[in-house]
């Protein structure tokens, strides 16, 4: 097939007085070679290495940026964990302090309660002691009074002219009545 095509083309070329398109002219080869060499040189020695360098640099930059962002994220996450840890610590500390304060408060209340009770007991005791002392004093005073009265009575009895029995008995009677009245008055006052 290709043979007939080529001969067909060859005859056509002869008739039209044009060269066979499958056979390159010398100048065609020469200039093609020049063009390919120039293009190859410009591309391979200058343009492509430079473009590739920029591409590589960009890739590196992007990858570096990504790594940096990843680091930053990891750091932020670590900071967050630390912060939360600190927050938890602070919360526990606060709870502990509150607990302590509550315990201390109740201890204080209890203490003041016992102190107040002790104070009250002391006051009551003092009062009783004072009452006792007053009672003793009253009884001593009474005893003195009775002595004085007895002495008075005796002197009265001795000093009176005892003329008769009737008179004597009236004196004794009167003394005893006085005594009894004062005793009754004393007892009512003491209680």
């Amino acid at each position, binding site marked *: 097939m290709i043979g007939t095509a080529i001969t067909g083309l060859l005859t056509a070329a002869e008739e039209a007085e044009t060269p066979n398109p499958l056979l*390159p002219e010398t100048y065609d080869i020469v200039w093609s070679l020049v063009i390919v060499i120039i293009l190859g040189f410009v591309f391979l020695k200058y343009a492509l290495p430079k473009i590739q360098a920029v591409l590589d640099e960009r890739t590196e930059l992007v990858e570096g940026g990504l790594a940096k962002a990843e680091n930053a994220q990891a750091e932020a996450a670590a900071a967050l964990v630390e912060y939360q840890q600190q927050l938890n610590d602070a919360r526990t500390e606060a709870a502990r302090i509150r607990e302590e304060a509550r315990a201390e408060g109740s201890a204080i209340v209890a203490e003041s309660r016992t102190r107040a009770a002790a104070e009250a007991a002391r006051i009551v005791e003092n009062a009783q002691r004072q009452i006792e002392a007053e009672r003793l004093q009253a009884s001593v005073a009474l005893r003195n009074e009775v002595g004085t009265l007895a002495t008075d009575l005796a002197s009265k009895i001795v000093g009176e002219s005892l003329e008769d029995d009737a008179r004597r008995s009236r004196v004794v009677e009167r003394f005893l009545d006085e005594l009894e009245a004062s005793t009754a008055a004393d007892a009512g006052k003491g209680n």
Partner: protein
Amino acid sequence: METALSSLATILPLAADDSEFHAPSLADFFPPAVLFEGTPFEINRIMIVRFIATAALIIIITLAAKRAKLVPGRGQVIIEMVVNFARKGIAEEILGEKLGRKYAPIITTILFSVFFLNITGVVPFLNIAGTSVIGLPLIFALWVFALYLIDAVRALGVGGFLKGQLFPPGVPKFVYIVLTPVEFLQVFLLRPATLTIRLFANMMAGHLLLALCFSATSFLFLHAAGGLKVLGVVTFAGGVAFFLLEVFVAALQAYVFAILTAVYLQMAIEPDH
């Protein structure tokens, strides 16, 4: 492709004889010399088109390299997209990471160069692909051919290379009677030849189709009798469609050339895979 070529060969001389309708012909690809006629340095229209494409590509890629920044502009993004695609999408995809990295620059160069020399076929005033004459596709193909021969021999030694190519493993011994001559032709002739012809024939055919559509449109509008003028609308629409197709073909053929470069390198250097 062969039938297309032979039918072209029969059609074209007839078309060229027509005095009013100037159909495109093979002569388009061998225009008269502008400078140094008859010397090995003859310059004609197509050579000038190639120089323009080459200069444009060099200016663009040099500026892109010079202005390459970490934070890219819009133009740099486009260039980098293609460079990255050649590296990841072609070289590393086919050759693996290590070999891919080594050959990515050459594959990138081929991708850019072939595309720029193809696209002149649809650039107004240039109107012909730099690769539509066989010399340039041939030089690119020979570059790839030399690259895979030399690097495979360097990696595997002459014996290792020939054994890997001509006696592929995992095949019953008697199959080699058929396989070895085929593989020999493949490695030493068909791979570079098909690389060359695929590119050059595609671009040549693209030019002929476009030129045919537009010259027919102009002929039908200017010289055809009344009713036939309507046909000019059809040929013009066809021309626009083929124009878009040719933009696509320019990119596709550059991609095919680049990917086959990677495939041939891979088959030569790592025959076991």
